[in-house]
């Protein structure tokens, strides 16, 4: 019996890898759907804030992530863009991360086609600009100075939806979808605190704990944390079988698998300790 616990304690990590892979693959192949229930989460706060904006509001979505965090953040981007389009708001896309501009373009253009929205009338992608927080401060005095053209080199003056927009005072909400720095914190500090612009956001699950401080102080109007946040938003918007909702099943099973590993590891540890073998 004692040998079993020693063997378990020294389990080959390749076995763990295979079991984790199976815990993700099987729910995907079997189309397992676990219904997502949205409670009193910060994701609901963001949804309700967007809902409460008057139609035609100007909303910045800052795509501050890259492909590595795309599985968590792209479903958020698509759900948020869909909600904004459905409520009749104007979307100004930009990115503090170089690769975020292309991912934002993908989210906005694919949904604008299906929802009958037009580029330059209902949405625009200004692209990536370097500078992070400093760039955001400069947006507070002149957005046109920072983005004389959009991502496709169309001049600001030729984009109808941007006429009448000078600086951050003309923006009703900023939503930063962020995988790190620069991202939500830069927007909160530079646009939210300095220019009093409401800030919402979406982030990876590992970043969410840090951002809860800004929710409590009401420096943020809402937050989508990880794939669960994206699934919540999809549920609230009414997207059936969205990417994030489908992702909840493999993630549920994987979390259970990791917890089982921790329990088994602890049982083996305590049994070995009982024998005086564990350190």
């Amino acid at each position, binding site marked *: 019996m004692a040998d079993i616990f020693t063997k378990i304690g020294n389990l080959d990590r390749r076995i763990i890898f295979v079991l984790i892979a199976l815990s993700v693959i099987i729910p995907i192949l079997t189309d397992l759907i676990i219904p997502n229930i949205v409670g009193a989460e910060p994701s609901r706060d963001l949804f309700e804030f967007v809902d409460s904006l008057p139609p035609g509001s100007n909303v910045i979505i800052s795509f501050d992530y890259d492909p590595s965090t795309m599985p968590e953040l792209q479903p958020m981007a698509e759900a948020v863009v869909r909600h904004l389009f459905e409520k009749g708001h104007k979307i100004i896309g930009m990115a503090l991360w170089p690769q975020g501009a292309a991912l934002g373009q993908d989210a906005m253009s694919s949904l604008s086609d299906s929802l009958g929205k037009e580029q330059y009338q209902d949405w625009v992608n200004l692209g990536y600009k370097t500078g992070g927080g400093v760039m955001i401060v400069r947006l507070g005095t*002149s957005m046109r100075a920072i983005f004389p053209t959009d991502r*496709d080199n169309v001049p600001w003056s030729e984009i109808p939806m941007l006429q009448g927009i000078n600086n951050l005072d003309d923006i009703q909400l900023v939503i930063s979808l962020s995988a790190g720095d620069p991202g939500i914190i830069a927007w909160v500090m530079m646009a939210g605190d300095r220019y009093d612009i409401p800030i919402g956001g979406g982030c990876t699950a590992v970043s969410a*704990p840090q951002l809860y*401080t800004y929710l409590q102080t009401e420096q943020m109007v809402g937050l989508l944390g990880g794939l669960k946040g994206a699934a919540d938003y999809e549920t609230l918007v009414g997207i059936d079988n969205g990417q994030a909702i489908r992702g909840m099943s493999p993630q549920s099973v994987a979390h259970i698998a990791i917890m089982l590993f*921790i329990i088994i*590891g*602890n049982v083996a*540890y305590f049994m070995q300790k009982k024998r005086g073998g564990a350190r």
Partner: protein
Amino acid sequence: MRLIIPLAITFTSGMIMILNFFIPHQPFALLGDNLQEWYMIVASGAIFLGAANLLHVHFRKIRLKLKNWKYSPVTIVGFLVMIILGLFYGVTENLPFDYLFMNMVAPMGATMFSLLAFFVASAAFRAFRASNWRATLLLTSAFLVMLGQVPIGAMIWDKIPLAKVWLMAIPNTAGQRAVMIGAAMGVVATSLRMIFGIERSYLGGAD
């Protein structure tokens, strides 16, 4: 002079930005705007420096046949292909650059990050031990957050998501805030030391 000029530039730039924050009127507003634009230009220049450095490191690796040098040609070819396609065809949708980005770079980037799940599981199995009451508290919190972060948690017991929100909003926030306030005070202190020339390590060790 090698010391005085950089210190003078740092002092002047730092003071302009501080005055611009507290007195947002001319001439500080204009000077602040200009300095912010200079910062963005310098930061853009750093991108070229990074690209040049990438090529330098990988060409050197190939030339000296250092460990894993066989991957370096792939990096260089990929880098050059993307640069050439971006420069000659542009980066707009449905063009070669965008096609390669969405169909190669994006899936490969997502795949690399997803490997984290495997290492997290392996590390948790080996290192996450309830060896004392503090570790047990952390373990219990982790279980509640992991269950609350997925719908299966609410199916097991509908109070689990509420427990997760409470853990994140109260104990977590208290700890995070302490760290953030400490870090922010450190940033303010270091910035002031640099502006007033007390901290000079950024000059490359010159006294």
